[in-house]
């Protein structure tokens, strides 16, 4: 992973999200290799255990980013219309308090073109329609 590339990506993602809402962003490129977006407002239909639409998201970069798209985790208490759709992948390992969000592998992931903003856009599309078999294809 090239931190000199990732840091500007984080900043650009922050700028992009700030235009729509105001979540807290943080990251750790030393140990956990992750970018955290806290208090992100999820689309209609999503709800946490407090009954609000706010949840946290982790982009797990790993040392191989950006060769490979990051894994995505969301707050473990998020539900969609009271249910846990298949995109919430409970059997997978996840950081404490989170659940893996099964975002489909992008077959054309290209590290020269795609970045964290791409991932966030993909996540947004998927969150809008989490019950679709492949939310990306049906978006």
């Amino acid at each position, binding site marked *: *992973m*090239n*931190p*000199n*590339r990732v*840091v500007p990506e*984080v*900043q650009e993602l*922050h700028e992009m999200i700030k235009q729509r809402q105001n979540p807290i*962003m*943080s*990251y*750790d*490129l*030393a*140990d956990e290799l992750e970018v955290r977006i806290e208090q992100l407002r999820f689309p209609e239909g999503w709800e946490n255990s407090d009954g609000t639409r706010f949840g946290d998201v982790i982009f797990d970069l*790993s*040392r*191989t980013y*950006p*060769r*490979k*798209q990051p894994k995505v985790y969301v707050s473990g208490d998020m539900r969609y219309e009271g249910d846990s759709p298949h995109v919430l*992948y409970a*059997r*997978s*390992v996840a950081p404490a308090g989170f659940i893996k969000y099964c975002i489909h*592998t992008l077959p054309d*992931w290209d*590290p*020269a073109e795609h970045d964290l903003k791409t991932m966030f856009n993909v996540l947004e599309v998927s969150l809008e329609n989490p019950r679709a078999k492949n939310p990306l294809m049906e978006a």
Partner: protein
Amino acid sequence: MDQSATASVTSGEVTDGLELVLTAAQVEKLREWTLQDDGIERFAYIYCERQNGRLLAREIDPIPAEDCAVMESSAVRPELAVERERLGAAMEEGLVPIMVHSHPFSQRPGFSALDDDIMESYRKWLGKLYPETPLGFVVVGHRGVDTAVYTDPTEPQRDRLGVDIVGEWTLDTPLETPSTAPDVSVDADRYDRSIRALTDDGQQQVADTTVGIAGLGGLGSMVALQLARFGVQEFVFADPDVVERSNLPRIYGATAADIGRDKVDVVGEQVVRANPDAEIRAYNDRVQAVPERVLAECDVVIGAVDRLSARLYCNEFATRHLRYYIDGGVAIETDDDERVTEERGLIQLVAPGVTACLDCLGRNDPEHLRVEEMSDDEIEADIERGYIDEDVRSPEPAITPLNGMAASSISRLFTKLVTGYSSPTDYLRFDGLDEELVDVGTHPSNDCITCGADGMLGVGEQAFETDALVGGDIDVSSPASEAEAVEATTITDDTLQEASSDTGTADDGTVGPAPDPAGTASAAGPAAQAIESTAWGSTADPGAAGAQQTADSSMSPASDCSPSGATRLSRAARERKWLLGLAVLAFVAVKWLRSRS
């Protein structure tokens, strides 16, 4: 100007404290700029990352005529404002600036008296402002360069600066550069035959080369042993695995007694036996966990690993540190009828900035990486969901003859790379079924995420400015930072000899070294114990070895996992003591009976 007040102290010697490292492409860029047909002297800066005594050239900055106060056939110097801006920016970024000018009229140039004065004036100016930053100078001619460096710019002591050119064989014309004196000796008698092929200098180059090997399995063990016999003396090994029974057909020198022992130790001992001058720093861990400064000492890193993430780490590491990386791998494909349909080997040389890196060639399959990073539970779940095939959990087929071909190809590539007797290949592919050997030239891609324009060429250890970051004050230390650093075991002929001579029976009945009141032996850790067990095996009497072999041949897989060779030997020793005691008892009993009668 008072000459006595400005005189520097020039040793004329090449310092062993610093070395300038450039890629061949950077050298060609410098030559192209500084040696133009008009015969005018020209100027350029090289901005370097300082890493463990190496100045890694990150950028060549040619200074055009409009930015120069003087630029003619006998003198060149940038405008003062340009000097301030360029040098200030570099120093503020923590980079070491090297000031380069040309002598287009010279084949093998040297610094003039005027150059001496100018260098000293730079030292007096910049040494006060940036006392921690060395000051380097290069004068370029058509066939050679000369260099100078103030390692401590607060002092007038000036030495020559060694120059290492990555991918030197690709230069349009050879370039003579200052180089540091060799620091190890070569046994001319032992290496007589290879000296006849490679010359004294070639053999010396081999002995001076530090080699890192990631992966000490079937392929890596063969490479290590070949290079040890060839005369390499300094090794760094990294492998997290222990020897399993299914490894024995491929790991050279490994025996059933080594089952359960760290691969790095088993192969390390074989290497020392092959070359008693060898010293191995053995890390029983992934290559990613080896401290960065240790791996950066390796002139050549060889990847013989089965994990793509480890290969890509080595690839990235080589690019950042301007070190050579040789990536080797083999694969056997079989069809549903278990027939071999493909048998191939790939060997790629990564000479940063000169040849393609793994990412340039797209050898970075994201799906492969994704699966590699999954836990067993995740793989299980993904198999159930049908995302991945069941066979991802099956070991790949492997046979030693194919490893042998690849190992020899790697060793040959290494030989060419280090001795320069012939240009090394960039990429070698062999097909074991068709007996085809294909040699392909490669070029780095400017768009490459690792070695391209926005990549990591020559950036050294990973670090970046934290001032303007989202989230602000956070720890962004490099991956293999001290906190994560793992300990190495050092394996040398001495450690083997000590292990051999110190073995005895300890109070607990196990075979091991003599008690160490100072407790220093424990610092060597489990690997040291492993060394001792092998040494014991090699010096055990034939009867014991034979007994051991017999036992091994009838061993079940389950029993292979339990006692090590040392434990079995210690048991044999204990059994013999018991037998001896019985014999003494019988003797005493007979004597007593006789005396009674």
